[in-house]
């Protein structure tokens, strides 16, 4: 028997460790170096506008940040953004999945069209929404409102966070749809028929059969979307730039403001560390929930 200890394993006479090493090293550096540097900078005075002021800052960066109302505002915005987009995409995705599971003419094309927004770059889709859909004078929504005799809405100044939520939800709805539609297809047709024989109508079938069946897929959607939605940046950058005021500034955008607009690398790093902690707290709850769902 050959030894199967990972480090000493041989395949075809080659020691595998030497082959794995580059990849492992690269991944490790990729993760450890930025993390280490962020941590390091977060304890330093490091402002590009004040080159003379350097050295160990202790917890001053954190103190400055944690007492800054912008942090709490942006944290709230992050959670609102994530929460609303998740709600819209999961509910919408489930309903659309049920819809697209029905037989109708042109279903294949409709499915492709419904999924296509996912393949548009975030910057591009945000620009399209900004200039063609939500623009107060040229936008489709304004035109629609006017044709009904309603006043046009200046989306990005009167409903800034809502606008961002709409744009991001539009991008992520197809993802939820794709996953849930795939899950729908594994629903045992016999179960649906048994439920029909038991007297279940379409609504009862949805709540008692379809939804429980989709539970796992929904938790996967929630987990994956959460990871990406916590770091939404491009959509905010090209539309509202975090404004008006701090209305659409999330954590990622706040870090950007501190680091690249205020040139305060130290505070920005502290913000980064806080974002990491927040993401981990969310992830712990999430992984627990998903793991529990995947178990049974």
């Amino acid at each position: 028997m050959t030894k199967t200890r990972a480090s000493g394993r041989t395949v075809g006479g080659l020691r595998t460790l030497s082959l794995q090493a580059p990849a492992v090293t690269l991944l490790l550096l990729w993760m450890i170096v930025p993390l280490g540097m962020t941590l390091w900078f977060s304890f330093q005075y490091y402002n590009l506008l004040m080159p003379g002021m350097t050295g160990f800052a202790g917890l001053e960066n954190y103190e400055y940040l944690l007492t800054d109302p912008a942090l709490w505002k942006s944290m709230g915005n992050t959670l609102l953004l994530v929460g609303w987009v998740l709600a819209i995409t999961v509910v919408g995705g489930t309903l659309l999945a049920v819809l697209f599971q029905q037989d109708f003419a042109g279903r294949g094309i409709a499915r492709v069209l419904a999924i296509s927004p996912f393949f548009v770059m975030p910057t591009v889709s945000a620009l399209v929404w900004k200039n063609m859909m939500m623009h107060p004078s040229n936008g489709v929504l304004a035109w629609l409102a006017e044709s009904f005799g309603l006043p046009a809405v200046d989306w990005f100044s009167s409903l800034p966070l809502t606008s961002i939520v709409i744009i991001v939800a539009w991008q992520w709805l197809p993802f939820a749809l794709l996953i849930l539609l795939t899950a729908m297809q594994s629903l045992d047709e016999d179960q649906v028929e048994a439920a029909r024989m038991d007297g279940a109508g379409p609504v009862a079938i949805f709540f008692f059969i379809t939804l429980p069946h989709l539970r796992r897929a929904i938790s996967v959607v929630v987990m994956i979307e959460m990871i990406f939605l916590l770091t939404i940046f491009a959509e905010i950058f090209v539309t509202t730039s975090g404004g008006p005021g701090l209305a659409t500034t999330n954590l990622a955008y706040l870090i950007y403001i501190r680091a690249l607009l205020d040139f305060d690398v130290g505070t920005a790093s502290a913000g980064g560390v806080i974002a990491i902690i927040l993401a981990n707290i969310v992830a712990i709850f999430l992984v627990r929930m998903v793991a529990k769902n995947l178990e049974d």
Partner: protein
Amino acid sequence: MATLQLHNITKRFGDTEVIKGINLEVNDREFVVFVGPSGCGKSTLMRMIAGLESATDGDILINGQRINDVGPADRGLAMVFQSYALYPHMTVEGNMGFSMRLAGVPKEERRAKVLEAAKILQLEPLLDRKPKALSGGQRQRVAIGRAIVRNPSIFLFDEPLSNLDAALRVQMRIELARLHDELDATMIYVTHDQIEAMTMADKIVVLHDGVVEQVGSPMALYHHPCNRFVAGFIGSPKMNFLPVTLTGVAPGGVGVRLPGGGERSIPVDGTHLEESATLELGVRPEHLVLDEQGPLSGEIKVLERLGGQTSLYVQMNDELITIMADGDVAYRVNDTVHFGFAPERAHLFGADGLALPSLQQHPLAGLTRHDNRGPGAPSEEPA
């Protein structure tokens, strides 16, 4: 109290006609079994009765009422699926009580009914389990329990035992037969399994390519198949067919010349036969007897010893003939055997595949499962 009638039922999927005009009568408390080769339309027919599939044409009547346009839940039927189709996220109790829950039955009443059904099926200790934690046989019982609590007028079973192992199948078969007696319900049962069909049915419906080939009691189908298809389909191993030539028709039977040269008179009605008719003789493997003086002979190609019985596969001209012989026969492969048969055990089929009617009814041909009970046994549950 439930009867079912099908009048000229047809079913088309697009251009293909799957069910081609079926007429059938199911009496109250009857156990009817649909058999037929794969793809002949058994499931489709059952699904139309259940209301899961609409009939393209024809009428379905329950207790004389046309129910073509009644939804599956309102026909008063319950179906047991081959895949069990249990709801995986509900407990056994939830599964069995689901129909009542949808109907808004109060919780206590629901529980009482579920318990009652669970008792019949010995499911009481399992009520809080999810289907995943059950064995195949237990799942099957839950599926049956789900049907029982609905108190249907007709039970529909689509190959309910085919996912079980042989021993469990025997046990469930007996249990189902007991259930039929206990519930006094009308049951329709689809199966591939000869033994299930023969042992459980009051009436067997043989389907082939979307048409009914024959309807009758198991013994009637076995002893008096109306055509070559039914003759070959019912009975295991399959009936042997031999080409024979007509030598003469007499009031007492039809004379034929066997492949080996011998002649026999088969007691069937040949009054409508033409002079030069080509005929086929059918004899079941269990009715062929080894006999040194027998008119037929051939070389043994394969020999299967089952202990109590031995199957001999004998090459005779172009045919491979199966003989069920005693377990102790001393023959070996390549030996030549002589064999014969009792003329009243043989069947004759015309060129059109139809059987010539026997002159004498087999004494057991009218028997149903219920007649197997001795005269002393009570015919109903004691009050």
